[in-house]
């Protein structure tokens, strides 16, 4: 079983390395305006967009101008999506005659999709018209991720530029991320998915009579296209409620592997892009290494926890051992075609990457498996992280690590030759504070109000994990659900909506300001006394700081959730 798991995780990891390099190089070319193979097709489209919208892509923006452009664009997108949901009943492409989405759910969904979270308090196949799915949700799947990538590029520019006032042009980054990165990647992925059996049509649902004579309505629609961008853009919002556990979203182990790769590709690639732009690819590899290490440890933990199975079932004499006929372990809430390893790997990576697509029910993970998923998000979206958001989070953590440990070499801290001074610390701490603040405060509200507790489907620590997970997922812009929580209530729709908006924009803005502030600095030349920010030692330090910051923040909460649940389970205790 060990070798089987190692082979599956190993295969994925080995494929990820060349993807990181190739995509990283490509991204660097795209955003510096260098020639790429796609230029003959895309350049005219790009020019047309600029002409129609009256944009001068060469006029550079300061970080503040960049932030304002980004926020305005997102605000308009959110209002548009909200209105679309509210009036979908009167619009075409609605063969199932879906009614207007209620106001609180429409707000939650709009906030969810513009923030690249894709938290779904609704079931897609019974709530959204095809038009809403395509023009509203899929559109946001593209641009919310493109916004994230653009912001990351702006911040990277800030880190690597010297004595510069500007960080790039938001519209240029947005258009380029959409046309050059997301469109081609999702087009290819959609075609592969189609080949593997994912539907792509605008037909009404198929009505079938089962062998038992029951009537069944089989949902379908433009699935492949949305599925592709769902992963390329680390969105994770499923066409169907069951998300990638649904055979029409993720039919085979091959599509599972491709989906895993698709949602980590851009985030991993950006580490290499960062290294290239910083003029030293080791800088990028060091960040990549820290990410990969945390991911692999988490994945190994989740796989081990799931494969170990449930001691309560073992006591009933149920065979949970791996054998030729079964993969064994805790198979509750998992698809047989994926088994333990692909499910646990998916759960770990989707929470690392802030993707949120799931191929198993996280509610049914073992407590330690759930702990991995929860903690991965609580690390603050830094392990690969959402499209763009991951590298940004990691850079902030690097600044923090350099500050704490950098002093220990006897120099005032610097990163890439830029001095980290009080302004940078203020911004970095602001970024770091927003996430625990919003998660813990909202969870505390939910934990002490009747409307918060009414949605829980389990008592005891598991119930606690349910709402802690929901707010963590929202603020981390992950969007995966633990399940078991009835999230479609005005209380949760409003609170999680707020959670996602705060977790996105109140973190992006200080990060952009940090980029702008570093960009304005002159860079110091490295010497033998300079704190090394490449190599194993720094990667280890980075991992340590990430784990300690998140661990210290969330340990009390986690100890009342998955940790005590695990300990109780081992002691054979259940909560009723």
């Amino acid at each position, binding site marked *: 079983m060990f070798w089987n798991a190692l082979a599956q995780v190993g295969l994925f990891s080995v494929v990820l390395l060349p993807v990181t390099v190739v995509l990283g190089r490509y991204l660097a070319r795209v955003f510096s305006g260098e020639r790429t193979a796609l230029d003959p097709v895309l350049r005219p489209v790009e020019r047309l967009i600029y002409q129609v919208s009256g944009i001068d892509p060469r006029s550079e923006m300061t970080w503040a101008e960049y932030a304002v452009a980004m926020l305005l664009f997102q605000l308009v997108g959110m209002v548009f999506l909200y209105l679309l949901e509210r009036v979908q009943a009167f619009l075409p492409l609605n063969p199932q005659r879906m009614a207007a989405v209620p106001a609180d759910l429409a707000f939650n969904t709009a906030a969810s999709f513009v923030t690249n979270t894709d938290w779904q308090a609704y079931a897609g196949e019974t709530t959204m018209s095809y038009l809403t799915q395509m023009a509203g949700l899929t559109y946001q799947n593209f641009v919310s991720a493109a916004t994230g990538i653009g912001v990351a590029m702006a911040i990277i520019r800030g880190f690597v530029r010297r004595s510069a006032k500007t960080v790039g042009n938001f519209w240029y980054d947005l258009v380029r991320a959409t046309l050059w990165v997301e469109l081609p990647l999702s087009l290819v992925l959609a075609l592969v998915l189609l080949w593997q059996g994912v539907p792509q049509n605008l037909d009404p649902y198929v009505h079938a009579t089962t062998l038992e004579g029951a009537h069944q309505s089989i949902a379908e629609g433009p699935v492949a296209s949305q599925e592709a961008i769902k992963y390329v853009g680390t969105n994770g919002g499923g066409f169907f409620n069951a998300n990638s556990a649904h055979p029409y979203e993720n039919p085979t182990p091959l599509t599972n592997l491709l989906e895993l790769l698709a949602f980590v590709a851009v985030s991993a690639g950006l580490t290499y892009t960062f290294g290239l732009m910083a003029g030293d690819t080791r800088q990028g590899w060091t960040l990549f290494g820290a990410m990969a290490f945390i991911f692999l440890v988490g994945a190994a933990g989740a796989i081990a926890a799931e494969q170990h199975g449930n001691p309560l079932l073992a006591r009933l004499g149920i065979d949970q051992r791996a054998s030729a006929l079964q993969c064994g372990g805790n198979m509750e809430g998992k698809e047989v075609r994926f088994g333990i390893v692909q499910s646990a790997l998916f759960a770990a990576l989707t929470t690392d990457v802030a993707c949120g697509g799931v191929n198993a029910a996280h509610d049914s993970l073992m407590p330690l498996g759930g702990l991995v998923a929860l903690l991965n998000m609580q690390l603050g979206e830094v392990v690969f992280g959402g499209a763009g958001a991951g590298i940004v989070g990691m850079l902030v953590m690097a600044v*923090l690590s350099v*500050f*704490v*440990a*950098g*002093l*220990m*070499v*006897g*120099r*005032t*801290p610097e990163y890439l*030759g830029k001095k*980290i*001074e*009080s302004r*940078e*610390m*203020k911004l970095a*701490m*602001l970024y*770091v*504070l927003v996430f*625990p*603040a919003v998660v*813990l*405060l909202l*969870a*505390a*509200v939910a*934990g*002490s109000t009747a409307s918060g*507790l009414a949605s829980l489907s389990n008592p005891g*620590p598991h119930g606690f994990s349910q709402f802690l997970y929901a707010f963590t997922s929202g603020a981390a812009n992950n969007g995966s659900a633990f399940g078991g929580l009835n999230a479609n209530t005005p209380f949760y729709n409003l609170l999680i909506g707020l959670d996602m908006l705060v977790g996105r924009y109140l973190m992006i803005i200080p990060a952009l300001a940090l980029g702008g502030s570093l960009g304005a600095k002159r*860079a*110091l*030349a490295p*010497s*033998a*006394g*300079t*704190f*090394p920010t490449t190599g194993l*030692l720094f990667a280890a*330090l980075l991992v340590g700081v990430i784990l*300690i*910051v998140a*661990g*210290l*923040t*969330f*340990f*009390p*909460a986690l*100890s*009342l959730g998955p*940790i*005590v649940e695990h*300990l*109780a389970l081992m002691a054979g205790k259940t909560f009723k």
Partner: protein
Amino acid sequence: MVRACLDALRKLDPRALIRNPVIFVVEVTSLLSSAVLVHDFSRGYRGLIPFEFQVVVWLWFTVIFANFAEAMAEGRGKAQADTLRRTRTETQAKKLAEDGQLQKVPATSLRRGDTVLCEAGDIIPGDGEIVEGVAAVNEAAITGESAPVIREAGGDRSAVTGGTLVISDSIKVQISANPGETFLDRMIALVEGAQRRKTPNEIALTILLVGLTIVFLLAVATLPSFARYAGAGTTVPMLVALFVCLIPTTIGGLLSAIGIAGMDRLVQHNVLAMSGRAVEAAGDVDTLLLDKTGTITLGNRMASEFIPVGGVALELLAETAHLASLADETPEGRSVVTLAKRQFGLRAPQTGQEQPKFVAFSAHTRMSGVDLGSRNIRKGAAEQVIEFARQLGGAVPPELAPITDAIAREGGTPLVVADGPRIVGVIHLKDVVKEGIRERFARLRAMGLRTVMITGDNPLTAQAIARESGVDDFVAEATPETKLKLIRQEQAKGRMVAMIGDGTNDAPALAQADVGIAMNAGTQAAREAGNMVDLDSNPTKVMEVVEIGKQLLMTRGALTTFSIANDIAKYFAIIPAMFMAAYPELSALNVMGLATPESAILSAVIFNALIIVLLIPLSLRGVEYRPVGAARILARNLLVYGLGGIVVPFIGIKLIDLVVAGLGWA
């Protein structure tokens, strides 16, 4: 010690404490828990009182210990400051009025621009520039060095410092600083740490600490809601105990002590930093500009060899050179006399009947010598002396050029000697590189510093000295402006530059450098321009300055890391203790096997308070610095303070728990 204890209590005043946000927060929460304690006592919750009382006491101790650390650090400078202050207040000045009349006024009434007369036995009443006269001054009050120094009007030794004593002669001094702004005042403020402003890095670090405090405030403040859901109760002292244990009180409590101790260490090395910022910058310096003369080489060139040409006897050359140098009061000239004396026992000038006529050295002629009747003896730069001999109809011996070239190549200076038209030989003047300078440069290199020598010599000479002394780089044929230009160039390349200077023409470069160390013996302009003053006027001291800067930053980083790493153990002590009642399974997290929930919490709080006291010596002494390169220092410190910071509290809390449980406190 007693004074430090009293100061620690005095510093409890929240208005003063708010400068230290972390400890201020501890004080506020201690007040809160004290109020709860009084409330519980008045309600008669007898069972809770012993535990809560002990927690509250240790919380207050945390604040007092932090104050004590600062008071200890300040105490070291206070005694010194008192002595300094006495010299300042008792001085009387002899002020020269516009009409030339002398008035006796208190030193404190002098203003910038006033002129005072200082005679032998007077204490100079304020900082200033000598405008007239020369005097021997005892600067022991400032430098601790009782050997008098010469101060004179004009040139690079014209600055005097208030509080120093005139031993001989009299001088007129124009006061250049108002009372309260003088060197002495600054020094008093500095050693006392009274007007200590936070340095940029301290401010940034404080932001980090405040941020962490807020994170833990969130983690602890949301806990009652989560605990209620779990069916567990929480009390205010329990939550406060957890909160205070988690927030970085160790570094918060020691931060200002570290800063004061760093400045104090500089003062002990007789270096005054004008700001804490300068000390931090010293740690960052990676390029060091050094004047050749006085820093790398002994002040002056020395005659080391006579080389005759044209068949002249060696002794004749020595004698001629000796004659040429008799009136030459420059160190080089004197060294020629010394060499002649040593080699041939030449002593009294054999001038005969003729009255000698001495020709002084001038920058224009670049020669000096003596006219003895018909003999015109000259020594000087090769070109000029050859020209002189030619004009008198002399010929140039063919072996002369190879000899002078060879000397120049080795880094020496050839002085050609001529007796009228006849060129008799060459004096080899040599720069003497200071002993041990090579090792010092090697150590600087290991620290990551590049040394650049600046000299007015020609490139050949400069290169030879650079090779001999092991300096990394050199700039030859430098003028005073070269320094400023060079500093700007280096800074544009992203380097942090330190330089040492004394002269007025060094002032712009001292001001431009990231760390400018002015020699106390230098001019007032140089002292104003630099951000540090070396009271011993010892140019090699820059190494100690850099090391102290690095030590200061390392100590800060090490204790921050240690403080944060401590939290892991504290969680394992307190979290199971808090929730054991609701979830007995959590006792699995009690890895230290602490006796009871109460003793677990109490032990964590006691550890948290005691560790501040235990680390006071380290924060005053500073973390040891070894020049082994950043990567190795980092690895070592991460191991000691990071890993150590994780492990130590597990042991410490367990030991305290054994005591607490053994004594039956909880």
